[in-house]
């Protein structure tokens, strides 16, 4: 195989891994604060739609990203209200949220699309970022903007979590809410903020899917990518650096599935589409029992 093929494949892997990276970071941020962010799949789907709509109706894909971020904040508010403040069960709430967002996104899309014409979003690239960035963006052109953002965030979160004071506080809330509370931290506030951030990251994952890859919206188009991100967090033992490689692995599965299909290897195409999911299952099975933050999933009740 040619060098070009490999370079091409690597870019395809990065492209497929970007949405996973955002989602996985969104899950990791929450779990480190003690929240199981099952709703990441729903945030992603909502973000995907918001990004398409924002980009199509303003004509600027960067405003599509902004729309996704706003949608993520909204999703985070709902989830935080329910799982942190009520507090409802985190898993049940997450699942319900995912189901609702499948319905709501499909409904909104149908309301806005007339006569069955697909909305095609312009794809996000450095060109629209504004002329003053030109000298910088020319060099970066090969890496899509959202992929770059994801890479920066992975490094940033890694450093923040494990080398700074706030990182220690953040991890403490996830490991022992009691200890954090006793130390004067507001567990509820930290967890809400984590959930807001986690949902925004999930929505950005959706935006990366639509603005960076498939330029339109399809019902339930995320197809469990949020959950693959969740698996990447487990596989990466709740560390951003290891999680990054897990996302690359799963991204490679997806990229490979498309490639093999395109090359027409003769198998039923559904086998290829299964690949990323089988890979995920196998990876999680190999890891076996993994211990995450101790208080993840346990609601915190004051007093």
């Amino acid at each position, binding site marked *: 195989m040619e060098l070009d093929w490999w370079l091409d494949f690597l870019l395809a892997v990065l492209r497929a891994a970007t949405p996973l990276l955002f989602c996985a970071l969104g899950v990791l941020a929450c779990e480190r604060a003690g929240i199981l962010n099952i709703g990441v799949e729903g945030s992603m789907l909502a973000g995907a739609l918001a990004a398409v709509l924002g980009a199509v109706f303003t004509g600027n894909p960067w405003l599509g990203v902004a729309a996704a971020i706003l949608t993520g904040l909204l999703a985070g508010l709902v989830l935080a209200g329910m799982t942190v403040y009520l507090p409802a069960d985190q898993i049940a709430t997450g699942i319900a949220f995912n189901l609702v967002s499948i319905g709501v996104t499909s409904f909104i899309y149908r309301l806005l699309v007339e006569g069955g014409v697909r909305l095609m979003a312009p794809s996000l690239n450095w060109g629209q970022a504004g002329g003053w960035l030109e000298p910088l963006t020319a060099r970066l052109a090969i890496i899509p903007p959202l992929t770059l953002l994801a890479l920066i965030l992975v490094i940033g979160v890694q450093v923040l979590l494990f080398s*700074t*004071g*706030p990182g*220690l*506080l953040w*991890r*403490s809330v996830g*490991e*022992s809410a*009691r*200890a*954090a*509370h*006793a*130390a*004067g931290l507001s567990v509820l506030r930290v967890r809400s903020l984590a959930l807001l951030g986690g949902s925004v990251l999930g929505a950005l994952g959706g935006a990366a899917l639509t603005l960076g890859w498939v330029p339109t919206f399809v019902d339930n188009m995320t197809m469990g990518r949020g959950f693959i991100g969740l698996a990447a967090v487990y596989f990466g033992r709740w560390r951003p650096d290891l999680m990054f490689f897990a996302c690359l692995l799963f991204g490679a599965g997806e990229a490979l599935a498309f490639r093999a299909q395109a090359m027409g290897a003769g198998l039923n195409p559904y086998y290829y589409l299964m690949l990323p999911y089988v890979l995920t299952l196998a990876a999680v099975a190999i890891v076996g029992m993994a211990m995450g*933050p*101790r208080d993840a999933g346990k609601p915190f009740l004051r*007093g």
Partner: protein
Amino acid sequence: MPINLNPISDTAVAVQMEGICKSFGPVKALDSVSLTVEPGEIRALVGENGAGKTTLMTVLYGMLRPDRGQLRIAGREVGRDWSPKRAMSAGIGMIHQHFSLVPNHTVLENVLMPQLRWTRLRPEWARHRKTVQGLSEQYGFALPLDGQVGAISVGQQQQVEILKMLYQGASFLIMDEPTAVLTPQQTDALLALLGRLRAQGHTVVLITHKLAEAFAAADNITVLRRGKLITTVPCEHTTPQAVAGAMVERDWSGDVDLRLPERETSWRLEVKDLVVGEDHRQLEVDGVSLAIGPREIVGVAGVAGNGQTELAEALVGLRIARAGTVVLAGQDLSAWSIARRLQSGLRYIPENRHLNGMVADLTLAENLILDRSESPPFSARGVLNRRAMGRAAAETIADYDVRTPSPDVPMSHLSGGNQQRVVVARALASRPRVVIACQPTRGLDISATAYIRKRLVQCASEGAAILLFSSEIEELIQLCHRMLVMYRGRVVGELDASNFDTAIIGLMMSGQVAS
């Protein structure tokens, strides 16, 4: 925030609580309690389970808001926004019975955590480390600063908690039952540490129900009973007997009237060469043989971790024995399921009721019949008979003096002593043939302990064979016909009630003497 390496007396605060009332539903946990603690004293707060000791201190620490009453710190009344955070910045620190530590983080990280601020991205790790190291040495702690808290001993974890408080500049330390989790040696070390803290000008409030500790460490003793403050007296002007009398309402005489039943000569439970454990490791139970007759109480003594737990669990079927036989009234039950063992009259009081003694979210009435839920009168054709359950619960509540608003509250709402009464009541109900009782009075107050001991003796005199595992030698001496001493999975000694001798038992427990 400036860190004070030697937070000495000028920061010590006087605490005044006046007319504090706090109710939980219909229960008055605190009934107009007024308490003053002077700077630089060690105050013991004693009382039975549920007397309100912990509640009073959580009010002081800002974790609970009182219904009524005033709180003055250093002469100034605190506002409605009194919270643990404010208490801490006023120099008050509280160490709870269950530690507030992060097990997966290091000792240093745990000590630093409360000092960190969200806005301070890069704390001065090196300076913090030096200060913590210095403080740790000053109090004679040998803590591995980079070791994970989950991997060090409970005694050391407690030191981490103390260090954490001191590092925050606490000069008023509240300790809730600090010795409940400690070995006797660790307890002595802790009590000595309290003296050092006082010498540095700190104030300590020691919540305990063990009078010996209160007298060993405290300057003054305050007695609470059923939410009311009974008295505060200087240690030197009173006696343990007088304080014990103030703690319980009934007239209390030091010993319970326990007349052991005359034991019979036949055997009810015979254990032969029982082995528990895995290959390539030290066996947990290494060939234990013992026999108990009806109407007999046999004690098992030993330092924790010498195979007692494993032996008890193998007898009730929670563990699979590798070899050996267990014969109950002539029937070999080695291969029986737990359910079948229960049906044949074997009962179990587990050493940790939270782990396998009760279901905290089920009600008292439900917990009481957990082991009999499939047999009449509690169920008929698979349907529970709530009325029969209610009757049994009402009987137990009256019989065992369980303090509860109703038989239908979840077990988790009861105090520890009352939970244990229910666990014991369940084991002793319906005429057991053999009772495996593990640490039945651990952590209980005087009257609950006395009551449960009396019940065990009564159960034996009604014909049961009782195997009693206890870490309190006094308890074994008081209750048992015979005593076995375990060391490294073996029975290294057997003594008859006529020659019980604490010194010899102690030597046997450390593996130095065999009978």
